[in-house]
């Protein structure tokens, strides 16, 4: 998986390319842990993301919780497979997906 970060002031955008699964979820988790400190708004760009498994969902949930007291987190450019994962697990009810 490739992780690309773009910072605009207190807004951070993270673009993911590849697969967010058991082996790659810890990379994203590590990246978020060291980046979120002063970030007020987090955008995750999934246009290059092929799929997500439950290991990835866990990381998204903790990022969502971390951003709740700030400007929030949104996910953009979600493909069909990822959208279906969000829907069947109920994640689509809580995450902001555009």
């Amino acid at each position, binding site marked *: 998986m490739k992780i690309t970060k773009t910072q605009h002031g207190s807004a951070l955008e993270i673009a993911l390319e590849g697969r967010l*699964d*058991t082996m790659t979820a810890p990379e994203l988790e590590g990246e978020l842990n060291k980046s979120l400190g002063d970030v007020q708004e987090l955008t995750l760009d999934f246009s290059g993301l*092929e799929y997500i498994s*439950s290991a990835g969902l866990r990381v998204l949930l903790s990022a969502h919780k971390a951003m709740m007291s700030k400007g929030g987190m949104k996910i953009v450019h979600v493909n069909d497979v990822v959208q*279906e*994962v969000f829907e069947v*697990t109920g994640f689509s009810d809580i995450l902001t997906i555009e």
Partner: protein
Amino acid sequence: MKELTVDAVLENIPSVTAFIDGQLEALDCSMKAQMQIDVAIDELFSNIARYAYPDGPGKATVGIEFDEENRMCSVVFSDEGIPFDPLAQQAPDTSLPLMDRPVGGLGIFLVKKTMDAVEYRHENGRNILTIRKRI
């Protein structure tokens, strides 16, 4: 059935996925079904790697079979680890607010929702889990 036997460790998820992807591509599988099968591999193989062999590493075999007539693909995971039926796990209560429920158990739930069938049996000392998906 085409099979691959590897050590049941998380580091082998990519090679198992690549093996199945190669077979699915040769079968002209839709990209969506392939991605869903890849997610199922991640969930199921990681379960085997984490829980099947508490006393040290063991082997796991992943096989693939295709029923041409129905375009039904079966992927079979087997191991000689402790008997464990992942389908017997209680489904997460998805009506509860997400923040209030444990995220564990989501993986197998996801597999059940995205595959056409999931079956478990314990036979000759092996856990055998089969997923079926029309491709």
